[in-house]
């Protein structure tokens, strides 16, 4: 049945994560200024805290289910701070979502306890994954893949224990030749030469990865399918479908930050005597209140498109369009919300005394990584127009 009400159990589980988020916030500024991840062990009482975070109680049959709840959990966690993310022991990386979506059962059993980053972008290719140059060549003698190439913008790249890597096994096959591989940090020939300095998510490391004759077992090809389909997009689609879960979760991360900014701004506006009159007409509303409600509505809309995409995934329904819809929507929304709130609050908004300027910086990545807003719109337009990748690019 169509319903948008959280059960008491839903609320309790979320309240738990919000409480932890509030706790983590005290370290957020420090992590941002130092551009370093806070190792989990420095958090007081972190052991218990982290365990409970990972397992916030099981849902009952009447509660919000799986993927949709994961969206709300993610929003709650990022409402705390972006720096909370890599604090989860095991899992939590974008590569983990890819593993969950495209890995075989054996692979999931073997690797899902690791924190896995995801490496797609290369110096010469941004949002166009068909330009991937990193190659994987099968050495039949040793039954190993030999990987060569360079990856940039690898989120959580330093702390991750392994990576889900995109590489081509046959460049002449174009997109169909692209496969994803799981590479552990200990693999020979895998090095991490650098770390990016960034506008936001400064507590989250973003690494450069180098692969030089890096060897991994044959079984590390995600999903295990070594075939290259003749149709130009078959094999690639397998890789792309991991995006159908990572895109909504990326959207949810940004939304958590935007929600934090909305809650902060609401409190500050109330201090200044601005109370939103829901239900009242324009004549009764102050300029500040109206600006606030516009941004609040934008948040609501973006949260709903994201819930929609993950609810479909949880219901095992196709959600390719919907995951692009929510990613595109949330990507624009969080820019507008956080930048608009900083503007609304005035001078205090740009001060590093408060976290709102940081949330504005942090969530600016939402519309860029995991496929820019432009890429998402291309995907949506192709779907609407029934156009191929060649028809519309």
């Amino acid at each position, binding site marked *: *049945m169509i319903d948008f009400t959280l059960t008491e159990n839903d609320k309790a589980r979320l309240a738990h994560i919000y409480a932890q988020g509030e706790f983590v916030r005290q370290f957020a500024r420090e992590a941002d200024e130092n551009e370093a991840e806070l190792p989990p062990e420095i958090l007081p009482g972190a052991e218990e805290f982290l365990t409970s975070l990972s397992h916030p109680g099981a849902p009952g049959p009447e509660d919000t289910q799986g993927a949709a709840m994961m969206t709300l959990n993610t929003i709650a966690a990022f409402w705390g701070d972006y720096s909370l993310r890599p604090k989860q022991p095991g899992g939590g990386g974008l590569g983990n979502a890819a593993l969950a979506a495209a890995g075989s059962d054996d692979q999931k059993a073997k690797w899902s306890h690791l924190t896995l980053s995801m490496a797609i972008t290369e110096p010469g290719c941004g949002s166009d994954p068909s330009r991937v140059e990193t190659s994987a060549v099968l050495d039949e003698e040793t039954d190993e893949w030999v990987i060569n190439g360079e990856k940039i913008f690898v989120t959580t790249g330093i702390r991750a224990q392994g990576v889900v890597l995109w590489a081509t096994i046959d460049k002449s096959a174009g997109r169909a030749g692209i496969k994803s591989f799981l590479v552990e940090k200990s693999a020979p020939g895998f090095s991490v030469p650098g770390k990016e300095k960034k506008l936001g998510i400064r507590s989250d490391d973003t690494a450069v990865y180098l692969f030089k004759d890096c060897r991994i077992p044959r079984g590390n090809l995600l999903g295990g399918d070594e075939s290259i389909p003749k149709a130009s997009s078959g094999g690639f689609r397998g890789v792309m479908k991991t995006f159908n879960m990572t895109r909504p979760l990326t959207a949810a991360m940004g939304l958590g930050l935007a929600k934090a900014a909305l809650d902060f701004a609401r409190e500050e506006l109330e201090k200044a005597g601005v109370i939103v009159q829901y239900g009242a*007409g324009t004549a009764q509303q102050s300029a500040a209140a109206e600006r606030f409600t*516009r941004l609040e509505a934008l948040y609501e*809309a973006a949260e709903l498109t994201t819930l929609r995409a993950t609810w479909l995934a949880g219901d095992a329904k196709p959600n390719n369009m919907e995951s692009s819809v929510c990613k595109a929507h949330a990507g624009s929304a969080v820019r507008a919300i956080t930048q608009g709130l900083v503007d609304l609050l005035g001078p205090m908004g740009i001060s590093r005394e408060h976290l709102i300027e940081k949330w504005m910086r942090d969530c600016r990545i939402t519309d860029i990584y995991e496929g820019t807003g432009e890429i998402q719109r291309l995907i949506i337009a192709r779907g*609407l127009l029934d156009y191929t990748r060649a028809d*519309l690019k």
Partner: protein
Amino acid sequence: MISFGMSEEQELIRDTLREFANEAMRPIARDCDETAQIPQDFLDSIWQLGLTNTQIAEQYGGGGEERSPVTNAILLEELGFGDVALAIAATAPNAFVNAIVDHGTEEQKQALLPLFCGDSFQVASLAVLEHGPLADPAAPLTKAEPKGDDGFVLTGRKSWVVFGDRASHFLVFARNNGGVDAFIVPSDAEGLSIGEPEKNVGLRGLTTVSIELKRVAVGPEAKLGGAQGGDVRAILDASRAAHSAILVGACRGILEFCVPYTKDRVAFDEPIAKKQSIAFRLAEMHIEVEAMRWMTWKTASHVSQGHEDATKQAHLTRQYVSEKAMWIADNGIQVFGGHGFIREYPVEMWFRNVRTLTVLEALAGV
């Protein structure tokens, strides 16, 4: 529990209405706009669908089917896809009936609901809106003077009263002791005069009138909900969900009409759909139609549950949906270029209809 899962019954209703929209609404929409009238045939055929009477409880003569505002939102989207003016005409009685069902006293239900269980189209109207800049439906200038046991005396002027020329009753929103109440007024009440049909930029097929109340005396039983009053805020919230649902359908219609045109129309050697400025606009339209729909569903769901955030949700949804619907309607014209500006194509009519509905309230309800 967050869920977007439609029931089988909801899917069936959606499919039925979608067919009705394509077959009974789309073909006559332009004619209604140009001639400024809606054929009685259409009203009769919609009445046969039972949108109004099936959901009235059996004890009042209705079909006794459970009325879910979310289902109504699904239904209104399809009607809005057909045509906005016709959608409002089709469901005009519901706004009044729903208000009685949700907020009326037992006596009010017994007196009024049976009127809407007959075989032919029957209408009563909400009289909420008023003229004047920044007019706020929740803060009417029309006022009710309480006269103790004698009831109330109503004075004021209401505009955009749908089918005001043929309504049996009006539900008049008026200030009463600092608050706002709704009053059931028969259309032949003394002191009530009904004006000529209004001329609006859009929804030209739909008859709306102004009604003037010059010291109209009504009994105490005329006040919706009796002594404690009805929740007029809830009526407005429900109207916002209904208008939003109609707008979702209208906008989906615009997008679906743009898609084949952009694939056919050639400029600079290729279909304009292959130009990112067009393709991305279509993508944006789709994103917003989706977002608008979920906002609408959530509002309808909250309204139906009497959720504490229902008014907030309705406020945010109205704000969001109005803005985005107007953006889509305006860009529908732009995608069609010169053809968007001429009346040979429907996009200019959709633009007028959407702009009109986004600034009006309480023409429809869920």
